[in-house]
């Protein structure tokens, strides 16, 4: 299968980056900031989860678009697979964030635009799975869930890219870019952060490709 062709290189690339990120993430020096202290290291693992999730959801949305324009069932299987892996990464992101929040803010969950955005994202994609499971006809399932996937992804754009930038919050990087620019990041942090992001994104792609092969084989039987 063509999916398996580049898999080895993706795996090697991702694993070597992640080994570096884990060693560097736990052992390298970090800037000593009040309140955050050593918990700043969560930056190397929590933020890449969200980047990976958004990246995989984007691929899934593009595949849904391919399905409704080219009408091949493989694109729908692809979009389903990428979404399921993305939701897995989203849950990991929420869990790592909650543990960090407990030690920094004192509670697992707060009413904050970024937290709400992530929770709503997960709700939307959980209902996407429910929609899929409630239709038995393959073609119909593919068509309806592709339409919902595109609509949902487009509605997420104002929710997670625009709304959090406009309101103040406790979350680091508030009142500006929710990504990485405002995190008073210095060269030390960047040296581990960027490899970690790349490593997790490639890990996500690797898992999705393996899962895709599995799903295609399941559909064929």
């Amino acid at each position, binding site marked *: 299968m063509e999916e398996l062709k580049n898999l080895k290189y993706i795996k090697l690339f991702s694993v070597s980056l992640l080994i570096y990120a884990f060693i560097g993430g736990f052992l390298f020096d970090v800037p000593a900031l009040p309140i955050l202290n050593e918990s700043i290291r969560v930056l190397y693992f929590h933020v890449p989860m969200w980047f990976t999730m958004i990246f995989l959801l984007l691929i899934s949305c593009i595949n849904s678009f391919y399905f409704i324009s080219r009408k091949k069932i493989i694109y729908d299987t692809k979009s389903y697979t990428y979404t399921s892996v993305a939701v897995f990464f989203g849950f990991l992101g929420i869990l790592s964030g909650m543990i960090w929040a407990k030690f920094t803010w004192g509670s697992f969950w707060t009413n904050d635009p970024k937290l*709400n955005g992530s929770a709503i994202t997960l*709700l939307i994609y959980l209902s996407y799975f429910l929609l899929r499971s409630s239709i038995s006809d393959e073609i119909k399932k593919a068509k309806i869930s592709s339409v919902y996937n595109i609509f949902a992804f487009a509605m997420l754009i104002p929710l997670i890219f625009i709304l959090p930038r*406009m309101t103040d919050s406790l979350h680091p990087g508030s009142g500006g870019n929710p990504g990485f620019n405002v995190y008073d990041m210095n060269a030390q942090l960047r040296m581990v952060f960027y490899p970690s992001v790349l490593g997790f994104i490639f890990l996500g792609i690797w898992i999705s490709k393996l899962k895709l092969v599995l799903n295609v084989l399941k559909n064929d039987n």
Partner: protein
Amino acid sequence: MLKKIFNILYKYLKIDLSLKHLFLSVALYLVSAIYIIYVVFDFNEIYEFEIWISLFWIVILFVSITSISKSFFHESHNRNYYYYYLFSPSELIVAKLIYNFIFLLILFFIAILFYSFLLGNLFLSKHFFLLLFLGAFSISNCLTLISAISFQIKRNSVIIGILSFPIIIPILKILIDISKVSHINPSWNVIENDFYILILINIIAVSLSYILFNYLWKN
């Protein structure tokens, strides 16, 4: 095209006038929901604006989901075939968007009348009516495609709730925020950004409904 859209709108209106129970059932749903709030909360003693307005928008949320899910479900299968041969999908979705907007707007005005009658109307301002207008516009735009999706699934009427709640949450949050803020400080500057985001969401929703309904409608 414009003429055809008017024809479809006229047809929807005639169907709703002949089958009065469709509108009346939604209106009764609304009235009973508000009456439950009246019985449970005693607003006569302490007027708390935040609770008053939040409860109002939550009622609006449930009523609009119920009414818009009806807007596709009451179409019989044969009538859909009839539409399929007579009109193009883009005409149908535009007519549906306009019709849902008007339907929700009428419902919202009934809601605010009855709500302020039972629970006090100390907080109404002319901004609030503008907000109702905006709310009906955004909620109907977002829910129309969702109801078209859930119409395709015959056996499940719960699915529209599940699909639409997460998508409607941001809109509802913005609407509640605008109404809270504009109550304290009714100037344009404080609500400007929220207003633009709402417009952006509407543009996305309308354009995607227009494009995606084509693929959904062909069967």
